[in-house]
């Protein structure tokens, strides 16, 4: 094991040197701050060992926002490099690393945790459960995700970044063409995070099927619960494919097998198929919960129940089924023949049918409503036209013969940013503005929220609209530069300016979090939006046991019904019983660390050391098997105390139903 320190730490690039210094300083800063405030114990007790779905949700969201920042900086660097022809801001190799990490981070380490974070916080509350079905497993999911994300993120300062694109097509991603260890990070880090995601999927399926409040039948579940349930089903069906593909990639790269290589009878096309067999369903894993959030927000701020609830449910199930049948549309140009391309054109276009149904249902939910333009609602409204553009260009791309001209151009890049940004990022913002008071007991500032909204949506359109036209003019994706004669320069410049506006929007959001945490009014009710679903029936922020008494569900929009009929809103002392809750555990955190260390050693191909570290994983499993801790009981007195603190105020001075 001869370590070359010069190679280990990437040197000689001012951008990377700057990041190395920044990382070092922020680590020192955080350690110093925690020590100064004497918060180490608090950190361990309240966060690192927690099994509370709400805290885990918040940690997911925090990690997601951080990763969104990292992925966003990657995006800005790409936009800076392509703002002028023949720019020398990044060289080809650096640009390749940047777009690879941008893709992986945005999809797997930003979109996924933001959505899973919101699912974590909201779903148990929405179905009237005390926690998820397997709370400790939930913590393990988070720490595995976090460990994978951190491992992936250090690649650019230690050892070298992956540089074969987020889809890591073979043979390029094999040792024959990328002999450095950069792409080992891809294979190993995503694998670790993926295990976490798979476990999350199982956890949510069981939670939603087994832990709903009394009376909440499947067809009385809130739409966000439905879409998250279906997304979890897709996770469980699609992620194992990726797990296997990544394992084969690891074998190819680290142990010299020939699954996808050119030599030894490997089959590079097999990787492409396996990748998209996971990759396309993955798109729906992120977009379905987002659809659910829009449904909740649109219903709440239109003061109406969701129009066509049943057809919404059927269309979500339809999208899930179709999502597994369309993967070939990512490579119509592979020459599979006209019959195959025709079939996959049809299945892909069929996705437009259930999606169209959802669109119209949202529009008709608003019709005859009383639409309030809160920040959350603005995100949902902007989603409709922007996603429509993403949708119709998607149908255009689905027409395989036409795709021969769009494939791998910026037209495609514009299309999927027009689906993923309105479909996921807008939804996450809508969800955060909407559920923030439930999570933290104060709202995000609406004025800053609107500035954030306008900067972000305008910036988004200015960034990505020109790319449709660039693509039709022959500009390809992933190219670090272009010639002045190509005539692409003006539109690229417009796009780069848009990216700056987009970034300002995100900065406003971060400032809004800070401002609201310091100055926002804490004196708000548990139901500031006059909402419809159960999570608003308990305190804001929700107590750790969620509900003192789990409400009984009679109809869809259970909380709305309770408010209209004045049922179950009050709590008498004799209704309060002891509550059984799970105990904290340090084991998931330990597992995250040991997985991270094992992964790191494997990335550097120090196989023996990795094997030794892997023993730590087995030890963790053994410890867990002999864990007989059965949780604890919350006493009636403690519950009474907690409930009194938010129920007794008689609504005096409490801002309710702010618009």
């Amino acid at each position, binding site marked *: 094991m001869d370590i070359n320190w010069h*190679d*280990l730490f990437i040197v*000689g690039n001012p951008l990377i040197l700057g990041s190395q210094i920044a990382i070092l300083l922020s680590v020192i800063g955080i350690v110093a701050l925690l020590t100064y405030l004497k918060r180490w114990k608090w950190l361990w007790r309240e966060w690192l060992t927690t099994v509370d779905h709400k805290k885990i949700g918040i940690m997911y969201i925090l990690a997601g926002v951080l990763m969104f920042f990292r992925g966003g900086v990657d995006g800005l660097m790409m936009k800076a490099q392509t703002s002028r022809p023949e720019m020398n801001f990044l060289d*080809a*190799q650096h640009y*390749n690393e940047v777009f690879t990490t941008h893709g992986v981070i945005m999809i797997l380490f930003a979109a996924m945790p933001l959505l899973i974070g919101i699912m974590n916080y909201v779903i148990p509350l929405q179905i009237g459960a005390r926690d998820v079905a397997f709370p400790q497993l939930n913590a393990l999911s988070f720490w595995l995700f976090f460990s994978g994300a951190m491992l992936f993120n250090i690649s650019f300062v230690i*050892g070298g970044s992956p540089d074969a694109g987020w889809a890591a*097509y073979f*043979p390029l991603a094999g*040792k024959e*063409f990328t002999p*450095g260890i*950069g792409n080992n990070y891809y294979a190993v880090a995503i694998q670790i995070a993926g295990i976490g995601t798979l476990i999350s999927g199982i956890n949510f399926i069981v939670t939603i099927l087994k832990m709903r409040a009394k009376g909440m039948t499947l067809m009385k579940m809130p739409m966000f619960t439905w879409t998250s349930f279906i997304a979890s089903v897709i996770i469980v069906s699609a992620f194992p494919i990726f797990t296997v593909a990544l394992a084969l990639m690891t074998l190819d790269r680290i142990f*010299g097998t020939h699954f996808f290589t*050119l*030599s*030894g009878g490997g089959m*590079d096309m097999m990787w492409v198929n396996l990748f998209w067999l996971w990759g396309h369903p993955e798109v729906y894993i992120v977009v379905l919960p987002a659809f659910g959030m829009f449904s909740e927000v649109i219903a709440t701020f239109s*003061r*109406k*129940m969701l*129009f*066509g*609830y049943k*057809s919404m449910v059927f269309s979500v199930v339809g999208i899930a089924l179709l999502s597994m049948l369309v993967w070939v549309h990512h490579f119509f*140009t592979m*020459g*599979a*023949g006209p019959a195959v391309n025709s079939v996959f*054109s049809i299945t892909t*276009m069929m996705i*437009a*049918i259930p999606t*169209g149904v959802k669109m*119209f*249902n949202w*529009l*008709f939910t*608003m019709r*005859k*409503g*009383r639409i309030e*333009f809160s920040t959350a609602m603005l995100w949902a409204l902007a989603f409709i*036209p922007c996603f429509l553009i993403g949708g*119709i260009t998607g*149908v255009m791309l689905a*027409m*395989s*013969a*036409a*795709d*021969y001209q769009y*494939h*791998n151009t910026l037209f495609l890049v514009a299309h999927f940013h027009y689906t993923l940004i309105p479909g996921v990022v807008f939804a996450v913002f809508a969800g955060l503005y909407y559920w923030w008071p439930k999570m933290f007991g104060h709202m995000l500032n609406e004025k800053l929220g609107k500035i954030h909204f306008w900067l972000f949506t305008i910036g988004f359109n200015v960034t990505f609209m020109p790319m449709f*036209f660039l693509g039709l003019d022959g500009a*390809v*994706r992933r*190219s670090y*530069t272009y010639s002045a004669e190509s005539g692409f320069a003006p539109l690229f410049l417009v796009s780069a300016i848009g990216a700056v506006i987009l970034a300002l929007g995100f900065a406003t959001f971060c400032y809004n979090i800070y401002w609201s945490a310091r100055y926002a009014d804490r004196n708000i009710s548990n139901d500031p939006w006059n909402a419809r679903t159960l999570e608003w029936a308990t305190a804001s922020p929700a107590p750790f046991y969620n509900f003192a008494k789990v409400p009984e569900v009679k109809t869809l929009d259970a909380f709305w019904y309770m408010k209209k009929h004045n049922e179950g809103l009050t709590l008498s002392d004799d209704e309060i019983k002891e509550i059984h809750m799970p105990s904290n555990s340090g084991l998931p955190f330990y597992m995250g660390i040991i997985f991270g260390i094992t992964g790191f050693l494997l990335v*550097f191909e120090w196989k023996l050391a990795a094997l030794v570290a892997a023993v730590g994983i087995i030890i963790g499993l053994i410890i867990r098997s002999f864990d007989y801790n059965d949780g604890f009981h919350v006493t009636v007195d403690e519950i009474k105390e907690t409930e009194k603190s938010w129920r007794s105020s008689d609504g005096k001075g409490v801002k309710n139903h702010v618009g």
Partner: protein
Amino acid sequence: MLLSGCDGKLVVFDPKGPAARDILDLINWSLVFMVVIFVFVIGLFVFVIWKYRARPDNDGYEPPEEHGSTKLEMIWTALPIVIVIALTIPTVKTVYGLEKPPAEYADKEPIVINVTSADWKWIFSYPEQGIETVNYVNIPAGTPVQFKLTSAGTMQSFWVPALGGQKYTMNKMETEMYLTADQPGEFLGRNTNFNGRGYADMEFTVEAKKPEDFEKWVKEVKDTAPKLTEKKYLSLLKPTHLGRETYVGTHLQWVDHGKMNSGTYTNPELYEVHGVKGKIFKDEESKDKSTNMDGMNMDENSDGGEQSGH
């Protein structure tokens, strides 16, 4: 059309051959539907949020609770189905049509050009003429060209947007494509599938010449260009950037990378960049083949037809 209205036409909207024209017809057909859908949905959207917005004077308005409407929901399920069918039929027709030589030039016998992509250059072999070019390809205008596509290494995509759509080039695989230029002219082609450091420069030019000029050029090449040697060819496969090059003879006499059991020609050690180097696995079998060129001839009898169309 909005997209082709401006004087500097976007390349996809300015086809110079039958394949690109067929695709453009399909794109224009789809655009009509997309514009109608867009206008309709946006119209409905603006109408709804304007009419039903919260105003001070409708403060007490209690929206009705409606569960949905089977009739409406049927309509907006059925309509997209109709649209999908209307788009599917021409798509399938075009997809099948593009696999054949263009009907407009049915009377002309297509010429064959083998395309081999390597890092980071395009190699064009004219088996009938016995010449080979790098990073440019001359074709006779008005004659269909059957491009047989393969790659010596990474997966790449062959695209000449003015003449038609694109297709992947893959090692040990052969894909095919017909392109035809209506008139003499110069067109830009490039790789669209990312393949590492030199990807951005993987461009080539297609020059369609008058048939007699094409013949003249072939003859000229045969008289003046250097002969392609095996050693020279192996050096072409190394990851380099090259300008235009021209040779007499084609590399097909030594290896056709489109054949399933052609050798593996990789140079992993030439791809090292910054960062930690991983272990490179040497494959004995492929090493033998790439150094011992005689071995290639054994593959002559193998059936290439099986791989084409993958």
